[in-house]
């Protein structure tokens, strides 16, 4: 075996080359925070404009129509040759403006992404985060924090952007467009439940996943996550349809099932201990209730899927 080494010691030819089609070219990326009403005129030319209002509102006039853009709404303007676009913002407005070119050359059998020209953005925080990353990357080497005046603006063209950054900009833009496309599907893809509860339940799940092998209980989790135990229990049940205690057992039994098959030389009591059960008899009863099989029976009906040698290696790795 080649001795231990970190990345620096390895030659570059070990990597993976990935090829992309990049039908995109960035033109401008700005974040405008305006305290007072104001107007700006842009000349889109051959570029597409994406305008997203994060706070406040603005009016976008493009010669044919004027559109009002409320907070958390986004607008896509197609390239329109020589015409001008006028953006008039109200006081206390916070918006993002991206301009880019999109060419179709080189794209033959690819897919198409259909994006509405106007969207009430479903997940504005997600979009904001993507646009922030985009602007950060577009800034490239010319990073500067603008002075803290009435109007703050970060904007830069494609100059001084490295090739990797260029690819990243492309991927970030497609993600932002996907986020807009998602908004047009009327939320059918979004879970309809209260988001706060989903987040709480998921934090409980994450805690259980990380600590199932320790002695944990529902009040412990509540203390750790700083919730009232009764509230946490209620919220969890509403979201997941089971108690936290049941969720802990489910997780432990599922882990036990995996460990029983992965570590075939270990006794049932040891597996039970690894999964947080100090009483092997109790573990057997719960296992049987969940799987309708004893731990030994479960092993018997699932023959070894690892080659013997690898299994032994894994066993040996466990020995201190």
């Amino acid at each position: 075996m080649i001795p231990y080494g970190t990345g620096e010691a390895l030659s570059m030819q070990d990597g993976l080359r990935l090829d992309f089609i990049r039908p995109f070219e960035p033109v401008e990326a700005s974040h405008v925070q305006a305290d007072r009403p104001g107007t700006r005129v842009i000349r889109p030319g051959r570029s597409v404009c994406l305008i997203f209002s994060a706070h406040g509102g603005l009016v976008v006039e493009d010669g044919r129509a004027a559109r009002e853009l409320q907070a958390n709404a986004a607008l896509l303007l197609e390239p329109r040759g020589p015409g001008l676009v006028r953006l008039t913002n109200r006081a206390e407005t916070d918006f993002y403006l991206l301009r880019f070119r999109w060419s179709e050359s080189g794209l033959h059998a690819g897919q198409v992404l259909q994006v509405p020209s106007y969207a009430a953005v479903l997940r504005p925080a997600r979009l904001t985060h993507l646009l922030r990353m985009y602007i950060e990357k577009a800034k490239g080497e010319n990073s500067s924090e603008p002075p803290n005046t009435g109007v703050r603006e970060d904007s830069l063209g494609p100059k001084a952007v490295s090739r990797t950054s260029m690819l990243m900009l492309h991927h970030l833009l497609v993600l932002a467009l996907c986020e807009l496309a998602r908004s047009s599907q009327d939320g059918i893809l979004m879970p309809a439940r209260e988001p706060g509860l989903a987040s709480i339940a998921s934090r409980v799940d994450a805690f259980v996943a990380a600590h199932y092998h320790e002695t944990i209980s529902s009040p412990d989790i509540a203390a750790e996550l700083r919730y009232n135990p009764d509230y946490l229990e209620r919220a969890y049940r509403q979201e997941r349809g089971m108690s936290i205690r049941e969720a802990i057992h489910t997780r432990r039994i599922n882990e036990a099932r995996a460990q029983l098959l992965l570590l075939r030389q270990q006794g049932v009591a040891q597996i039970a201990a690894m999964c947080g059960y100090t009483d092997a008899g109790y573990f057997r009863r719960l296992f049987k209730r969940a799987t309708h099989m004893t731990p030994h029976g479960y092993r018997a009906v699932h023959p070894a899927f690892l080659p013997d040698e690898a299994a032994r290696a894994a066993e040996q790795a466990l020995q201190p």
Partner: protein
Amino acid sequence: MIFPVSVAIESLNGGQFVSPGFGSHAVRVIDSYELIFVTQGCLDMFEGERSFHLERNQTLLLFPGVQHGGLLPYAPDVNFYWVHFRPADPGFPDASLYVPKVATVSDPEGLTELFCRFISDQESGILDPLSAAHLVALMLCMTCEEGGQARPSRSRGIRREQESLAQAIHRHIEANYEKPITTSSIALDLHYNPDYLERVFHSRWNMSIIDAVHQKRIGLARAFLHTEPGKNINEIAFECGYTDAGYFRRMFKRLTGLTPREFRTLYARTHINTH
């Protein structure tokens, strides 16, 4: 509007591994590539004839068809993200990316956030293949990025002693940003006039000293918001060097565009595996 796109990657599933303190990575052969990103502890793996020792903020790219597995039992504190993918035929490419086998990531928070985004949508069942492919492509781009966050100067005519002073300020910030430091306290510690210090720093890093301090602090806060679900926002503010939580919130919003709470609930769901 319709945008023609090409997908260079087919992404499969992803997740976060949290060490249970025992066991080791299964020995196996898979039919896809796997990117592993260690966020805590060390991970020792082998692939074919080679062994890899990964530390925090390092990534490893595993290839399909080659046996890989754990070399040592999982350390009790190891924590990593993983995602499986396959390259797809993009047609007639005009750009390529060279993904290194092992890399040290220059923006670990950014990469962690991409993984969180991927996993959260995957677990909610709303991850479409196009977004998934571009998220994985973005993760791979991040393993190729060079250099740290400190960007080189624009100005050419900076003298050597000023350069070393700018570096000294930078190091001072790196070491002390969790404490309540200000430009004048740094000036006092380094025995320089605050205005001169500010000028030298600005000409080198193109930002003010206090902005650099805020950037470090908010970066730390972002990491805490994801890794410490039990901490409330006032505590995080305090641990990041802010004594006034309201001020922290304003700075956070200014630098990230989101409130700390919005940022925390950005990725509500996670997928954790322990073997």
